[in-house]
């Protein structure tokens, strides 16, 4: 047990390239074994990496599946702009499933008041969209390092005909052998980034020179603090009288519904700067910026059981 780490010789593959090869392998397996895949795309960093890996998996051919955005209606405008440009440039087919529409149709009911979000409502919209288009496999950018229930996920996460997750009856997944067999109506959620960490994502963004929405980098924004989370001021996020609005230099670690996604104070205005900050961060991505996961110890597990990705 003496050997020093190997140099990046031809025989040894660097960790990011190893993760890339694994993700591409997963994406190709699913396309080969299932009928109608779709890629879930939020224009966040994870789904941008996922889209890039899917493009690589099939280049020079176009993606053999469309891209689905579950739109809560409470978006950062910069993110929606980015989404439309990124997908149009490369000729991807975008399907937008709207939570607002689900609310209008009476499929879900919105509870009002400060601190509520549409995150939980997304599940219904997602399941409806999968059913409407008869998608049987949905690629998602979820990572196991995000959260405790996520850490329990398989790469191919089997869901019953109601889209539900049963953590006790997951299929064993030894080696790189993925069982994609399902019955009509059942689905799999596929997580090619399972073994990636937040830092891996950023390092891959750097390696592949991927463009990201501007909110990921330090900029000045009007924010106010609620339950320890810095929320950006918007028409959907209005402060109560006791909440003080300040102009701060911030960036976002995650992109989500803007009613629950917090900003962090930062001066990192490029990828290298962000990597430096994250490498030294002592608070997790979700812990720092996502209010929804704090509501209960098992919040994510419960949402996954219902059919959330």
């Amino acid at each position, binding site marked *: 047990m003496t050997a020093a780490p190997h140099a*990046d010789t031809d025989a040894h593959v660097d960790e990011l390239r190893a993760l890339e090869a694994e993700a591409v392998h997963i994406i190709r397996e699913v396309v080969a074994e299932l009928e109608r895949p779709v890629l879930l795309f939020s224009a966040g960093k994870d789904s941008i990496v996922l889209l890039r890996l899917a493009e690589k998996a099939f280049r020079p051919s176009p993606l053999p599946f469309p891209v689905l955005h579950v739109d809560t209606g409470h978006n950062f405008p910069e993110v929606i702009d980015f989404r439309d440009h990124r997908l149009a440039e490369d000729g991807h087919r975008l399907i937008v499933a709207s939570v607002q529409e689900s609310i209008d149709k009476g499929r879900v009911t919105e509870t009002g008041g400060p601190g509520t979000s549409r995150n939980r409502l997304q599940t219904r919209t997602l399941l409806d969209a999968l059913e409407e288009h008869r998608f049987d496999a949905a690629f998602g950018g979820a990572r196991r390092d995000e959260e*405790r229930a996520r850490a329990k996920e398989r790469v191919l996460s089997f869901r019953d005909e109601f889209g539900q997750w049963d953590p006790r009856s997951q299929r064993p997944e030894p080696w790189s052998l993925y069982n994609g067999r399902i019955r009509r109506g059942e689905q799999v959620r596929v997580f090619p980034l399972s073994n990636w960490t937040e830092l891996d994502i950023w390092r891959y963004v750097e390696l592949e020179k991927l463009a990201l929405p501007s909110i990921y980098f330090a900029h000045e924004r009007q924010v106010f603090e609620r339950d320890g989370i810095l929320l950006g001021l918007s028409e959907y996020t209005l402060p109560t009288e006791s909440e003080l609005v300040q102009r701060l230099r911030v960036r976002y670690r995650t992109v989500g519904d803007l009613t629950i996604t917090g900003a962090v104070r930062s001066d990192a205005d490029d990828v290298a700067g962000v990597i430096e900050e994250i490498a030294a961060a002592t608070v997790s991505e979700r812990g720092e910026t996502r209010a929804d996961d704090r509501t209960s110890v098992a919040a994510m597990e419960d949402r996954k059981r219902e059919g959330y990705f």
Partner: protein
Amino acid sequence: MTTTSRPRQLLRLATAGSVDDGKSTLIGRLLHDTGSLPTDHLEAVTNADGQADLAALSDGLRAEREQGITIDVAYRFFSTPTRSFVLADTPGHERYTRNMFTGASNTHVAVLLVDARTGVLRQTRRHARIADLLGVPHLVAVVNKIDLVDFDETRFKEVESELGLLAQRLGGRDLTVIPVSATRGDNVVTRSDSTPWYTGPTLLAYLEAVELAAPSAVASELRLPIQWVARPTDHQRRRYTGRLSAGTLSVGDEVLVLPAGSRSTVTALDTLDPHRAVAVAPLSVSFELADDVDVARGDLVVSAATNATAPVPAREIDATVCWLSETPLRAGDRVALKHTSRTVRATVQELHTRLDPETLEEHDSPSELALNDIGRITLRTSTVVLADPYATNRDAGAFILIDEQSNDTVGAGTVSDTREVVPGEQTRHDIKWHPSSLKRDRRWSATGQRGATIWLTGLPASGKSTVAVALERTLVDAGRTAYLLDGDNVRHGISDDLGFSPGDRAENIRRVGHLTRLFADAGVVAIASMVSPLRSDRAIARALNEAADLPFLEIHVSTPVDECERRDPKGLYARARAGELRGLTGIDAPYEAPENPDLAFDTTGADLDDLVARILTELARHEGLQA
């Protein structure tokens, strides 16, 4: 910034051990002491008194927290400047052994936990055996809760020797043993002052130093299973994708595509990495070939170099399996076997042994393998599998078994040996031919029926079936028992698991050969109407019948291909010409005409009754010879 500029290695590890040995605490300790534990995660498991329950970090599911056990694999991440680690925290509970199997299957290191107070337990042995079976390159044993035996060196030595015995039983494996207190952090990341008698590495030091062997990067050892084929457009060539499990691939390499054996040269290669021209395992690639050879998902690309070795196109596999299902596995069961990117049907030929997890002894000829059992079995596959022994190549030697009804993954296994099965020639020691109490002569004379086989071969739409139907009718009208075994009908039942690959075609002919032998033995005139394009396949059918002293007539329906294509009652030729159907005999698959048929005729403009009469004359001549 050091983390971004230096290429680092990814090490995968799994933990194993009994319930309450302290796995989750150890992992919490590793994460905490390497600074990989975010403060919010720590806060979430810290009680009002400020006591952190590190074990709770891994127990991500409600039921796990309620019952205090780990049900499913949890993946955790930590890193140091030289390596990043993906850790599979696998359950100790016996009921979830299958998850331990999953977690440990593709890891470099297995960390085996042992409680210093109890020593080696049943589950420790089982997990060590599984890790060994899975070919996990490195085993390290952590003797935990050393603080609870007062850091007693003598007790540590006792447990160490128990572990030494275990390593011996696993074929003398190298096993590093480290005294640890996960709760206090002794010898996990930081060296302990309480164990001055221990001079070996801390757990983290071990994990950072352990050597990672890369898969073979010898060009001639290439193994590249095809995953997906991009259909060509006007501007694009056909493109093949897959992930290397051994060897290298670069532009200009000559390759063989198995099982067909087509040869071509790589003309374009995408390794996904712009700085890398030569692909090595485990990279995923896409590539193009110089020739328009037929390559499909499940095929295997290997090197065409003269010194290269390819796996045998096997139909029989000796393997060790871990059974993962509540319904036990028995000999004769049918399953789907997924190996690399190929899924085939398989029958469990024989259960050889079952491992006693308590004693690690193997018991011969078990009646079944129950949930969590490990045993050695032989599988017979419906079509060829191109596997390497697991000891040589972990990816090319591993498979899962899938239940075709439930679609569940019910087994996982490793290949120890593969055999090419020459149809009709395999010897089986476990089954005997059971003779009938009746002699054939007695049967034939009592019914006045004599059996024979009339085998019609020829191109699709050559008129075989038309002749066969008329022949059957004429024979029956004359008072003989005759039965038509039509190629299409056989594929509805007896051969519904077979496709049209060369291997599957051969198997189909072999089965029909056996059927005609049984029919003929019973006194029936079996009429087989089969394209049966290859001489070697037809020779097997003939050999089966002649070995049993049964008349066998090979009749070549030699209608030329132009005429067959003009008729085309099933539209096969039209589809083949349109590119919708591949491998149609006569168009893009070979037909080998019989060299010495018993009879040959072209049906173009022929009189059907005349053809039938010619066959009957030939049959009578054969029967005369027989008598």
